[in-house]
């Protein structure tokens, strides 16, 4: 008999041991999603080969400064697969140079992509996947049912505005994405999708997660947006949706093979000020480069991601990283950036934050002011999460399988960004 199990939320590859290095290859995208935090998407800023090559040379020739055991070479946009030709060239160069330099990362690297999935089936993308099959991880973003997906994930207008900025149309993208899901899952059966929830999406959470499960996606990584978009009563509606989702997952037995990141045994506990003082976000331990060759502690600090602050540039591909500008990121801890209400919070664990959003929303130009826009949403999530685990454990108890489950349970720590 197979071991009785509950599917855990999958940790990222080499989590905690890898350097995440992101190429912002383009700031263009076919879509103009209404919740997208990239407020400055445009058709003009595309990375050149020269910029990419100079950046790769800088990173690989400074091995002493990048001692992490592994590396994830991340490609992001806009929509990265709009630049598949450039990406293919960069990846080939990375492989050759890592090998040629006897770089320790040749033994432990991945190419990672977050895509809208629209170009997934094209021969260029497929040929690239085939060539790098053992080192690729691809996440396609699909938000759930057609209705929920098309609420936000719409095509952009065919023409940009006078500043080259993209504008949303009314045409949803669900059908253009869902057609590629079977191919994607046949190539990456364990792949997960990323779902983003803003205020208008709350009524569709349950049906969307179940819809994604029905498409064969076993891992649904879902989060509420960090921005201050929440309306009065959203927390109650959110809690209700999550409880309905909990019922559906437990009553339908989905929990054995499918995971939804909303539900985790590790959230909703108080945190010790000494022991649990680490930063949530990985900004500063990551590195991003854009088309201009500027370096950022995370893509969220590039200008196209920021509503109200100036880009926080930590260097460039010619001069390298200004280590002094990284110091605040690498010394940032939970206590220093959190307001008292967060330190006193009895359900603090699992309450996430985004350093870029914190910076963007802060009263002053600092990364040390934690935004608490998701406070009520986190508390609602905790209540529903408690309900989920209490209900699930009772079910296992009644089935006489609780002890067996607890014995086989894997200790999964919450993922940092």
């Amino acid at each position: 008999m197979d071991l009785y199990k509950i599917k855990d939320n999958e940790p990222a590859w080499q989590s905690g041991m890898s350097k995440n290095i992101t190429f912002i290859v383009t700031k263009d995208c076919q879509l103009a999603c209404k919740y997208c935090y990239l407020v400055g998407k445009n058709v003009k800023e595309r990375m050149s080969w020269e910029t990419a090559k100079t950046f790769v040379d800088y990173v690989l020739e400074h091995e002493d400064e990048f001692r992490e055991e592994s590396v994830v070479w991340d490609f992001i946009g806009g929509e990265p697969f709009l630049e598949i030709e450039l990406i293919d060239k960069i990846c080939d160069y990375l492989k050759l140079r890592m090998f040629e330099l006897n770089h320790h990362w040749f033994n432990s690297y991945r190419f990672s992509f977050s895509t809208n999935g629209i170009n997934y089936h094209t021969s260029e993308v497929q040929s690239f996947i085939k060539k790098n099959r053992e080192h690729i991880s691809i996440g396609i973003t699909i938000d759930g049912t057609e209705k929920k997906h098309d609420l936000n994930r719409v095509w952009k207008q065919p023409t940009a505005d006078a500043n080259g900025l993209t504008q949303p149309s009314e045409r949803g993208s669900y059908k253009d994405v869902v057609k590629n899901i079977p191919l994607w899952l046949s190539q990456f059966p364990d792949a997960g999708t990323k779902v983003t929830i803003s205020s208008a999406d709350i009524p569709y959470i349950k049906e969307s997660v179940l819809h994604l499960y029905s498409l064969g996606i076993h891992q649904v990584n879902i989060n509420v947006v960090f921005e201050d978009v929440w309306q009065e009563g959203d927390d109650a509606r959110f809690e209700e949706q999550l409880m309905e989702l909990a019922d559906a997952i437990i009553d339908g037995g989905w929990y054995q093979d499918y995971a939804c990141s909303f539900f985790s045994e590790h959230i909703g506990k108080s945190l010790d000020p000494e022991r649990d003082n680490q930063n949530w976000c990985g900004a500063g331990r990551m590195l991003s480069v854009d088309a201009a060759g500027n370096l950022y502690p995370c893509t969220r600090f590039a200008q196209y991601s920021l509503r109200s602050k100036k880009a926080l540039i930590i260097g460039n591909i010619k001069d390298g990283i200004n280590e002094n500008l990284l110091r605040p990121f690498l010394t940032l801890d939970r206590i220093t950036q959190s307001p008292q209400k967060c330190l006193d919070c009895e359900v603090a664990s699992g309450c996430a934050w985004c350093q870029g959003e914190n910076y963007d929303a802060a009263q002053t130009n600092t990364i040390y002011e934690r935004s608490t826009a998701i406070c009520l949403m986190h508390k609602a999530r905790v209540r529903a999460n408690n309900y989920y685990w209490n209900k699930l454990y009772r079910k296992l108890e009644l089935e006489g399988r609780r002890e067996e489950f607890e014995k086989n349970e894997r200790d999964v720590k919450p993922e940092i960004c």
Partner: protein
Amino acid sequence: MKEKVGQVTPEECSEIQQLFERRNGLNELAKILTPDNDALYQKLVKDMGETGTKFQNWWDHMAQKYNWKSSPNGHWEINFDTCEIFLSE
């Protein structure tokens, strides 16, 4: 069918994981590297041979050390997360 037949230490697990990763890296590098880049091509060929040997030596050495159960039509697999060894048939 898979049956758990043993366990290695985290250090041993890390060793074979590195060799596994390197072998995959070399295989994918071989798809883009052509003999006209002579020096690098020779380096690749040599490395593929050496890595393959180290890879096989690891399994031989561990099998001897831990005396895992085997079967004529089966092969061993390792779970890099748990360091468990499985016999797969």
